[in-house]
């Protein structure tokens, strides 16, 4: 059974285009696109253009970023259990966000929401610490140190988050827990536009990496013997995946599960060649998160669920089904 690759991309694209028209309130498309009604009076257009479309774009970007970072980090660490959150990036980002929520800082910036900015700074801090610790001895990064430092920082930051929450009052604590569950309700284009340049840089590097990542899965020495500049590849992979993860967490919070199941599901369908796995993971990651977010918006409507709950609750069994089906074949 071989599905043409373009089918994955087309399906993902179709899902993202249709998604804004699905939701708890039905919108009248005719009036939404009727530009004779002033925008401030046009509720349908407001829902579509300010609530739904940015939200779908955010979902697609975050889903693509987390899925591709997962692919890159699994190859870099030569560990199929690695996720975008393994190296402590998301915990750093979360701590940054929680501190701002709890301490109530607000920098009035016209471009970037304060919480997102703080989250990104937190991610950068975590990345710098992990990189500093794993800095090459000899001619490559130590994947063991990367993993151990990442996992340790993850625990350290998570403990700090708990401490901050414990000290916080009820409302702040509530908000910060909500943030940690992941939410794509960006209500507007500002967070997307501010994260977009970072994501584009990361995606551009991802385009450059696949062939070297393939060879890197044979081991660093074997890759080096085939002419791969191992240290340069590791650095590019580490920083681009961290950048994508940091930007994704700044937009949507630490939405779990995508970074591990999408890469594995894609490999089950198309094999392990990163030149194929990376683009398809981007498309399926985007589609998967957009679908989960439709679920989050509609299942308990009018109440909205955090999308992070949906990704794991529905994605988990779905992934297990693929796994079992693959074992049987």
């Amino acid at each position: 059974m071989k599905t043409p690759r373009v089918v994955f991309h087309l399906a993902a694209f179709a899902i993202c285009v249709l998604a804004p028209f699905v939701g708890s309130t039905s919108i009248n498309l005719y009036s939404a696109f009727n530009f004779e009604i002033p925008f401030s009076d046009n509720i349908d257009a407001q829902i579509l253009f300010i609530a739904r479309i940015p939200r779908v774009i955010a979902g697609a970007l975050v889903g693509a970023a987390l899925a591709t970072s997962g692919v890159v980090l699994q190859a870099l660490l030569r560990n199929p259990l690695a996720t975008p959150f393994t190296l402590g990036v998301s915990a750093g980002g979360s701590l940054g966000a929680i501190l701002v929520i709890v301490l109530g800082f607000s920098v009035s910036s016209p471009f970037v929401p304060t919480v997102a900015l703080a989250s990104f700074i937190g991610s950068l801090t975590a990345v710098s610490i992990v990189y500093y610790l794993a800095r090459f001895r000899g001619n490559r990064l130590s994947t063991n140190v990367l993993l151990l430092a990442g996992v340790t920082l993850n625990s350290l930051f998570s403990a700090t988050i708990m401490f901050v929450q414990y000290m916080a009052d009820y409302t702040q604590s509530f908000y910060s827990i909500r943030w940690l569950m992941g939410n794509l309700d960006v209500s507007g284009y500002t967070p997307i536009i501010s994260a977009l340049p970072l994501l584009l840089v990361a995606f551009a590097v991802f385009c450059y990496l696949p062939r070297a990542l393939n060879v890197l899965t044979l081991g660093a020495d074997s890759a080096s013997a085939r002419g791969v500049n191992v240290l340069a590849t590791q650095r590019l992979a580490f920083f681009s995946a961290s950048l994508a993860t940091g930007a994704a967490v700044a937009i949507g919070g630490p939405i779990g599960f995508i970074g591990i199941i999408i890469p594995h599901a894609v490999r089950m369908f198309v094999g392990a060649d990163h030149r194929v796995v990376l683009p398809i993971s981007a498309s399926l990651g985007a589609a998967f998160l957009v679908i989960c977010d439709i679920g989050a918006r509609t299942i308990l409507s009018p109440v909205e669920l955090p999308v992070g709950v949906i990704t794991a609750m529905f994605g988990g069994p779905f992934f297990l089904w693929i796994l079992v089906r693959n074992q049987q074949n």
Partner: protein
Amino acid sequence: MLNCENISFCYESKTVLREISLRIRRGERTAVLGPNGSGKTTLLGLFGGLLKPKNGRITLSGIDLADMSPTQIARRLAIVPQETRLTFDYSVLQMTLMGRYPHLKRFEHEGLDDYKIAREALAATGISQLEDRSYKTLSGGEKQRVVIASALTQLWQLKDSQKPSPNEGLLLLDEPTASLDIGYQLDIIKALLVLNENHKTTLVISTHDLGLAARLSDEIIMIRHGRLLATGPTENTLTRETIRDLYDIEAEVHRNQETGHLMVVPLARK
């Protein structure tokens, strides 16, 4: 082809190799012998450009390895480790094609010529029929032959005749049969002999297996405590005396009537 002039190497403060000078000629089959920890793997790492000598220099076809880029080195020599484990599963053909890495540009995909070379390499190691199998499902001996095929794919180029030819290819094998049973060991030996005879591949093999060395090599390098103990043609170099000096063991060396090869029978620890 490969020339070492007075090379030394140390890991941090521990000196692993001292003042080694030797020469590997094109088309030769060289066995590197030495006890555990004597520096065999380090020597192969230096030959392959994975490690940089502390002193001295190594030249490949007259050019200093230090002046060559990783891709330039990779087109001229390939390394086969003792064992290759994959993080993700690739097919035998995909894995063989990875040898084309140093020949392709960053965004280039393998073309028909690359497939041709990979298939010739699979044929040369006798595993054409495994092409579509997944690497992880193979036996140890089959896996090792895939890795050798991938290394050949790295060295070979299509010449005018449209038949792959070795491009001054040097194959470094680090204990390639250490984890294989005797049947697979013989398979690997056969495949290596075919490569050397039909494809003029130069072989350097580090090994603990004196039988393999006697059977396969025409030149021997012996190292102990990081120093060159003896080097020369197998016939003259693999003797009772050198084996005693190398491993502190008594052994009998005689010629097998059937194959005409030397045979080493270890007798006792000295």
